[in-house]
């Protein structure tokens, strides 16, 4: 009893150390937030200083260009349907680039992921090698590969396709190997006990387990790849991005074309996103027990 009155009781000691811990935690998170804010503010200052036009100077003009485009498109609204129709083949090319590169990249990623998952890899010592291959192909931005290939192979959809497929292989390979790690290996054991080859084990034992997840990640990647394929077109790889750059470089007078392309691209992205999200939801519900 005397202990409590003297303030040396276990309770107040616990409380004291708890409060000290709380203070320390608050101090740490305070410092972390402070550092973050300082980085953010000074970062914006640096970026602003190195930009061609300043943020505050540009802010009032931010809607000038969209307004020009919209007003010009509105003046020529009668031609809009024709323009949309004219750029449809380019849009299909962009979609084709995205679809083929997703297909090829997923196939390559599947192979790489199987080769680099423990328990499934036919050559376990080579697992780190295949992992590094995936890391590097994921790290290479598409634009690097695309520009080099454009120089070597000439313009057109093929350089863009190869570039996106390579990146997709790395990105999907990593996700797929995470899926593989969670797969049940018992079917593989069963198949190997009856003398099946590695290909048969993978196709019959692993792929049915992981197919819904694979498909879902593949669809997500397809959404990303449509955007990538449009951007690569802008640096000269064909498709709708290329047409966008052309109509932009003409300047005023051709902004109705730019508006048509903006519209096509926007609608496509929204539609594909929504379809893929519906399909993915269905897949993940089907996969749930």
């Amino acid at each position, binding site marked *: 009893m005397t202990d409590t009155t003297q303030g040396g009781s276990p309770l107040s000691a616990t409380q004291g150390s708890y409060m000290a811990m709380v203070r320390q935690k608050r101090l740490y998170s305070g410092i972390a937030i402070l550092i973050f804010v300082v980085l953010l503010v000074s970062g914006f200052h640096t970026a602003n200083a*190195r930009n061609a036009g300043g943020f505050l100077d540009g802010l009032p003009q931010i809607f000038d260009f969209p307004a020009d485009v919209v007003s010009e498109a509105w003046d020529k609204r009668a031609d809009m349907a024709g323009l949309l129709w004219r750029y449809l083949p380019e849009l299909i090319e962009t979609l084709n680039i995205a679809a083929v590169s997703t297909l090829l990249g997923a196939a390559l990623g599947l192979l790489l992921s199987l080769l680099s998952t423990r328990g499934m890899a036919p050559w376990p010592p080579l697992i780190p090698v295949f992992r590094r291959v995936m890391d590097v192909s994921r790290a290479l931005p598409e634009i690097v590969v695309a520009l080099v290939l454009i120089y070597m192979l000439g313009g057109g959809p093929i350089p863009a396709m190869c570039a996106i497929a390579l990146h997709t292989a790395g990105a999907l390979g990593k996700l797929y190997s995470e899926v593989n790690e969670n797969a049940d290996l018992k079917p593989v054991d069963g198949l190997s006990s009856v003398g099946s080859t590695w290909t048969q084990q993978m196709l019959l034992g692993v792929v049915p387990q992981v197919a819904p997840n694979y498909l879902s990640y593949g669809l997500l990647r397809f959404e990303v790849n449509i955007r990538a394929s449009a951007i690569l077109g802008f640096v000269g790889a064909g498709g709708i991005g290329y047409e966008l750059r052309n109509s932009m470089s003409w300047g005023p007078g051709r902004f109705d074309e730019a508006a048509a392309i903006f519209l096509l691209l*926007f609608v496509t992205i929204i539609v594909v996103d929504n379809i893929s999200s519906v399909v993915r939801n269905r897949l993940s519900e089907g996969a749930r027990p």
Partner: protein
Amino acid sequence: MSDATVTLVDRQDAAQALFRRKRLVSVGGPAIILLYLTYIFFAFDVMGLADRARLDNAMTLIRDTYSYKTHVTRANRTGDLTVAKESERPATYPEGQTPDWVEVAGETVTIDLPKGHSVVFLPEKTAIYRHPEFGDITAKLDPGVVIDLPESQIPDWVSYSGTRLDIRTEAGRMTMTRSKTEVFRYFLGWELFWFTLDSPYHNHSVLEVLFGPQIDPERPNIAGAWQDFWGNPLWHHGKVAWAIAETVLMAFLGTAGAALVALPLAFLAARNFTPFVVVRQLVRRVFDFVRGVDALIFTILLSRAFGPGPLTGALAILLTDSGSLGKLFSEALENVDERQIEGVSSTGAKPLQRYRFGVLPQITPVLLSQVLYYLESNTRSATIIGAITGGGIGLMLTQAIITQKDWEEVSYYIVLIVLMVIFMDWASGMLRRRLIKGKTGAY
């Protein structure tokens, strides 16, 4: 009994239908893909690729990435001799100074090439290429190019027209035109990567620079060497470092800004925090809209207002990702555990305190992990956006590729970009593990 057989027959039918469907899918799926790829094969004109492909471009690119060439040039009108690496001005040897494989004796210049090959520049606009197996090829300017071969047949590694001679062997290359006679010798590596020829530190080892006597009387060794390396006029290390920093800055500002914008909006888009359907739907449509407009279009629109530069790129990433992050955040918010919020509100907490102590601790690990993932992926996007808006390493890369000259610089930038992305990947992965583990460990 009859009931059992009926169900058995039914089940058998159902099973057979299932098998038929599976068979259809397992045959039909690949067939459709194959059909599509065949269509693409013709739509993309894969057959025409062979005509369009420029194999010589590919060879130049590959050779430049691991080697460089030193040019020994004699101007045929004046007789002036210059020795320069990759014929760049900062890489030109000063007058009267030549590398040890070039020997100058009056007007006669002997250039040693590897594998026993050599070239001799003689007076009166004459040059001899000495091939150890084939023999001497003598070329003279009189007034066109006149050659003299040991055999009457011109070998396929020599291309000759009346005005131009070009000899390409595995040891080097010699060209002669009316204006100049030029010899290329190839060396492994990237030329003058550390110091250019005009720097006093060229040809000094690291140890000499660090611990040796003062090389440049004006400056201390380390400071001077750093100055010359950082401002290397061929490689621009300082500018490249700035460009990398700009790219990372774009990714950081874009991601952090997007997270700050998205967090409050996500509360408005989450079902359990915003009972008003109109507000919720409105915010969600805004998220969909900015995601759909996409970074490419934002970049174009913003660069009209702010001009090219890192700020434009950062804002484009910020706008696009506030949509993506807002959607992810609101999904995370819909999955929070209500009991913790109830617990906090039972102590009499006000709404803001409820969010701070009941909601944020639950979702912080999820949010942080998503933000860090986006940071890593945005480093790549910033490279690409930089190529469009003109900022950062993306711009330097496109410029180097467009000039089609300095492929060793292109490979330097590619290596740096890959290292940058791998570093960001590693750093964000480490932070993610550390922060999330720390959080779960504290509970």
